[in-house]
């Protein structure tokens, strides 16, 4: 909502800076997102106070040597008038009319040295006004167009305004506003700061047309701030100033012959008072479609609306001012239609839901299909407009319209929202109605618009008002307990002060025992219960003045989150082991993930899929964390020589047990590229291979004290012969290995030749519960160890894990450690054999081992391994 400060001042006195106003509104929930300045300091083009002033045009004469130039003599506040040479077409009409003083024509006037926008260039290009001869006459001043001042793009002529149109005059009486105040129990407002003196020639233009426009963000509960009066009411309450409402009285023509009252000419009914609670109409005849006064055009423009003509402008003006969108029908069109269904009867307007298949052609010319819940304004001849959203083409006012039926109605906001979204019609009216416009505003808005049509468009208001309001909304009455208010807010205010704060926002407050009986004003639709009243009290008191305290409430039972603790432990360990953590998108597609399985084997669990995906390849919640991490590895493989990544996160498997999927935590690791950062000392480091990943996992599980075993496995994602599954007991907890070249290619991981891409995919749902919180420590040995080396020749196909297991079993308690230090298979051995060399560490807990002890163990090991594995000592 764009709120020009000068317009706001019409309803509330403001003795604060723009920044202070913005801060007060922002703190109270009407967030001022930005302030746009016109002409004032802070504007893109600041109007020089000395050199850009208001001038009165005294005389216009033809340039002696140029048909398309005139000489305008102006009074700009100096002792002597000055002559400006100009080509402004809207001055030509005054050539030769002599002294124009009585016409009181005013225009913005710039003197040499002033900076303006260049009117002849596209866009906004600043230029400094310099004196130069124009067809022989020296000129060093200029009458300005809107474009030159940055007001609009208009450059056809200069701004030329009658003095009384520069500023808003008192429009309509204030008496009605006072009655409104009295009805609400408010003290009378002080007289407005009027009448304003007509600005004198020489007044800096800043003081006449300069302004600051506040851009206020509208939240769902601040729909009341979609009008200037709504914002003024908040500001008045926040600054404890009175609110000046405009006159809501209409001066209707006297009823008489040939001018029957409106209720004999128009009848309004509805069959859905729930969707259309109120419908107010006035008839204004003899309207002239002229331009609206300059002050109104200027305000509309500042508020973001383009001025059209006085009828359209008044409709928009009242919507912005009061907050009540309204609609103007061409009454003669309605009457002509009525001649078809009731030649002697009144126009019959009826609101209803559409008939099956009914369409409407809206005023933008589009024929629109209607949802069954979209409410229409109709007559017996057909439909007229989409209620609260957009008018229909046929009954719209045109350039020749003179008799206007003015509609101001209220509509159910949810229904308007649904309809506007379904129609994709987001008009200013729909914007307001879909946030809630209180029924009380319909009458005020209708009267205000009618009166302005009378005053500014020369219309005559037919006697009477049609006001169809079958079930007036009851007032919202809430009992507020000051104790509740204190407990909720932490602010200890006496009941009297609470009442005073609420009254500033026009709540009616009466004491009711210990409590306060509060009646919400009819323009508030967001007040439902005592909590809403507490918010109002806090807002007006000032959130910043409420104390700050620390929780003193009972501390809840402290519960562990074991799964999270263990995940975080894993993260720490993996980072310590040299892996970089990543967080990835969880939306993917089946095709993206299928790249992980080059030989098929579809995943049999259903995906969670979106009905409104952000992109065709992001429509499903992932089944694989590894796939996500591989995408990251691929992207980094274009520049990073060393890639070692992990992610811990959920996968989402569609469930048959309920509407929600199983969300299962997984760990994925991807490694490729250089093992170390390359440096100048040792040349290029070696590349990651299978055993780098294996070593990380070995270290991880050892640190976690989870006894994971590894066995060779086949898996379509991995290279045959370089894949293993990870087990705890009989339970498979994951897979690891070198990825299949087809997978690497599918993900487009750019690995150098001979560089493997290693991956692991681990089920944390299975692993996490197996991590012990505690374990027993092993005492440090008191007696020295004896180290022996042993090289065994075994079948090449025998897994090393089998040899080590046999060694440990045969070595018994005295064999404290087994460490493989060499693997050899080659010409020095018979075919089909390999040699495994181990460091064996023998140690006894209770004595120093003798050579004989060790020799006995060694013999036993060799004997048993030969029996069990056919192993021989390498000679």
């Amino acid at each position: 909502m764009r709120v020009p400060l000068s317009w706001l001042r019409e309803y509330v006195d403001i003795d604060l800076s723009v920044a202070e106003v913005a801060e007060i509104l922002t703190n109270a929930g009407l967030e001022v997102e930005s302030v746009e300045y016109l002409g004032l300091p802070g504007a893109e083009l600041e109007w020089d106070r000395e050199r850009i002033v208001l001038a009165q045009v005294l005389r216009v004469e033809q340039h002696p040597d140029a048909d398309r130039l005139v000489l305008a003599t102006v009074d700009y506040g100096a002792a002597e008038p000055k002559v400006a040479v100009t080509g402004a077409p809207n001055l030509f009409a005054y050539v030769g009319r002599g002294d124009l003083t009585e016409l009181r024509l005013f225009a913005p006037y710039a003197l040499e040295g002033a900076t303006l926008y260049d009117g002849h260039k596209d866009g906004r290009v600043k230029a400094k006004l310099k004196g130069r001869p124009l067809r022989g006459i020296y000129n060093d001043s200029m009458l300005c167009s809107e474009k030159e001042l940055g007001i609009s793009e208009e450059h056809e002529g200069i701004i030329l305004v009658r003095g009384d149109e520069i500023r808003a005059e008192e429009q309509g009486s204030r008496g009605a506003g006072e009655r409104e105040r009295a009805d609400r129990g408010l003290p009378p407002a002080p007289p407005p700061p009027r009448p304003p003196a007509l600005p004198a020639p020489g007044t800096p233009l800043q003081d006449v047309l300069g302004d600051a426009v506040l851009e206020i963000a509208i939240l769902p509960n601040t729909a009341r701030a979609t009008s200037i009066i709504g914002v003024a009411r908040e500001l008045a309450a926040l600054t404890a100033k009175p609110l000046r409402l405009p006159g809501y009285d209409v001066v209707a023509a006297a009823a008489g012959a040939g001018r029957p009252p409106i209720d004999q000419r128009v009848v309004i009914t509805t069959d859905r008072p729930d969707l259309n609670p109120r419908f107010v109409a006035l008839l204004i005849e003899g309207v002239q479609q002229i331009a609206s006064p300059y002050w109104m055009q200027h305000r509309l423009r500042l508020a973001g609306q383009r001025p059209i003509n006085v009828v359209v402008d008044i409709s928009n003006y009242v919507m912005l001012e009061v907050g009540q969108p309204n609609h103007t029908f061409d009454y003669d069109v309605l009457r002509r239609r009525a001649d078809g269904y009731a030649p002697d009867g009144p126009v019959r307007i009826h609101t209803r839901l559409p008939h099956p298949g009914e369409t409407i052609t809206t005023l933008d010319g589009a024929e629109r299909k209607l949802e069954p819940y979209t409410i229409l304004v109709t007559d017996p001849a057909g439909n007229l407009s989409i209620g609260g959203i957009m008018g229909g083409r046929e009954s719209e006012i045109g350039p020749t319209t003179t008799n206007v039926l003015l509609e101001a109605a209220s509509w159910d906001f949810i229904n308007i929202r649904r309809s506007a979204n379904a129609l994709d019609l987001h008009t200013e009216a729909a914007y307001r109605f879909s946030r809630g416009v209180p029924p009380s505003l319909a009458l005020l808005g209708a009267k205000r618009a009618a009166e302005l049509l009378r005053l500014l468009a020369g219309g005559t208001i037919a006697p009477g008002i049609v006001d169809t309001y079958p079930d007036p909304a009851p007032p919202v009455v809430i009992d507020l307990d000051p104790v509740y208010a204190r407990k909720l807010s932490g602010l200890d205010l006496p009941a009297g002060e609470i009442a005073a704060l609420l009254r500033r926002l026009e709540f009616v407050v009466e004491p009711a025992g210990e409590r306060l009986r509060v009646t919400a004003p009819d323009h508030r639709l967001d007040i439902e219960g005592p909590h809403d009243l507490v918010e109002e009290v806090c807002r007006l008191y000032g959130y910043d003045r409420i104390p700050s305290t620390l929780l003193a409430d009972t501390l809840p039972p402290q519960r562990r989150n074991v799964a999270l603790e263990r995940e975080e432990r894993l993260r720490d360990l993996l980072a310590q082991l040299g892996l970089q953590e990543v967080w990835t998108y969880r939306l993917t597609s089946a095709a993206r993930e299928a790249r992980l399985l080059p030989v098929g084997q579809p995943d049999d669990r259903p995906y969670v899929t979106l009905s409104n995906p952000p992109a065709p390849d992001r429509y499903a919640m992932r089944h694989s964390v590894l796939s996500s991490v591989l995408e990251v590895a691929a992207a980094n493989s274009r520049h990073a020589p060393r890639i070692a990544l992990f992610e811990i996160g959920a996968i989402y498997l569609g469930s048959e047990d309920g509407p929600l999927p199983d969300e299962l935590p997984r760990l994925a690791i991807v490694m490729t590229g250089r093992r170390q950062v390359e440096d100048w000392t040792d040349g290029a480091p070696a590349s990651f291979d299978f055993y780098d990943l294996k070593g990380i996992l070995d270290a991880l599980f050892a640190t976690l004290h989870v006894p994971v075993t590894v066995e060779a496995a086949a898996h379509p994602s991995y290279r045959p012969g370089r894949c293993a599954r990870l087990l705890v007991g009989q339970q498979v907890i994951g897979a690891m290995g070198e990825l299949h070249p087809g997978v690497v290619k599918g993900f487009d991981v750019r690995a150098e030749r001979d560089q493997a891409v290693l991956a692991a995919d681990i089920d944390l749902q299975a692993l996490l519960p197996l991590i012990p919180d505690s374990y027993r420590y092993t005492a440090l040995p008191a007696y020295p160890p004896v180290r022996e080396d042993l090289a065994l020749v075994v079948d090449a196909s025998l897994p090393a894990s089998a040899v080590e297991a046999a060694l440990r079993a045969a070595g018994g308690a005295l064999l404290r450690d087994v460490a493989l230090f060499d693997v050899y298979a080659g010409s020095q051995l018979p075919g089909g054999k390999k040699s495994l060399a181990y460091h064996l560490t023998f140690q006894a807990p209770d004595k120093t081992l003798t050579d004989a002890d060790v020799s006995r163990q060694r013999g036993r090991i060799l004997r048993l391994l030969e029996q069990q594995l056919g192993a021989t000592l390498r000679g």
Partner: protein
Amino acid sequence: MLEELEQHYRQATAALAASEGREALAAWHRDTLGKKGSIYLLTRNLGALSAEERPAFGRRLNEIKAHLEADYDQRLAEAEAAALEAQMAAGALDVTLPGRRPAHGRLHITTRTLRDIYRIFGDMGFQVYRSPDVETDEMNFELLNFPPHHPAREMQDSFYTTTPGVILRTHTSAGQIRAMREYYPDPIRVVLPGMCYRNEQVTARSEMQFTQVELLAVGDDISFADLKGTLTDFARRLFGADRQTRFRASYFPFTEPSAEMDISCILCNGAGCSICKYTGWLEILGCGMVHPVVLRNGGYDPERYFGFAAGMGPERIAMLKYGIDDIRQFWANDLRFLEQF
């Protein structure tokens, strides 16, 4: 004889001074003080002396030997020190050459930020409670007082799944009802972290996926003043002890009164700069007192119980803290970005 001895002493001293380096010194020692050295040879002359002369000569000879040994030791020590100096000088390194950096891993910036948040609230008795990413419309919206078609729903554009009534959660507030129903009637202090999803254009400032941490406290003695104090403490611990906070009225369907909390700009300290758009304030989180409808939906009687809730974005916090200008970096996972933290 004595005269000859003194002359010899002078000669030996001169020869010692002229000897440079350990080897020359060793040769001097051998030739002068060794078993066949010149001093030793002088003792042979003892027999030629009279009995009266002999003690004086012997005493002087021993004195001279001791002096020469001492001088020699000093010269040798100097020579060894000089040799060591020379050896070390030859081994000087270019200390400006880069070192060998071990490859090491790091946690993602989001993890680190989440942990900061957990730790601070953990100290105040809040524990982590996690709830699903794929949620029911009921948990995400309806029970949080967002009726169908309510304008508040348009504040958060949802991703809908093909299962009716199931969406990707738009905020971790969705876990509020789950926590309340699980813990009723205990008082509650939880942080609800997790991934959220909104159907928004992905730009430098907004993402379709982001993390969020929701804070929820429920009890019979919890007020808006407690909310202010708790969150101000949090802001000061996270962003520095001199941070000012500002609470301004706002709207969330599931809180009333509602507020936005701003902190004084961490870059300009409130003076105004481009980061804070010259307001001096940075928007950090939304918060408010739990709406009575939400308390009731969670099983807590709003006449007896009060609560507060707050929601914050770890990415936003990290962006402010480290001056990151593009939220997409959090999901792009470019190592050149991640390795800066």
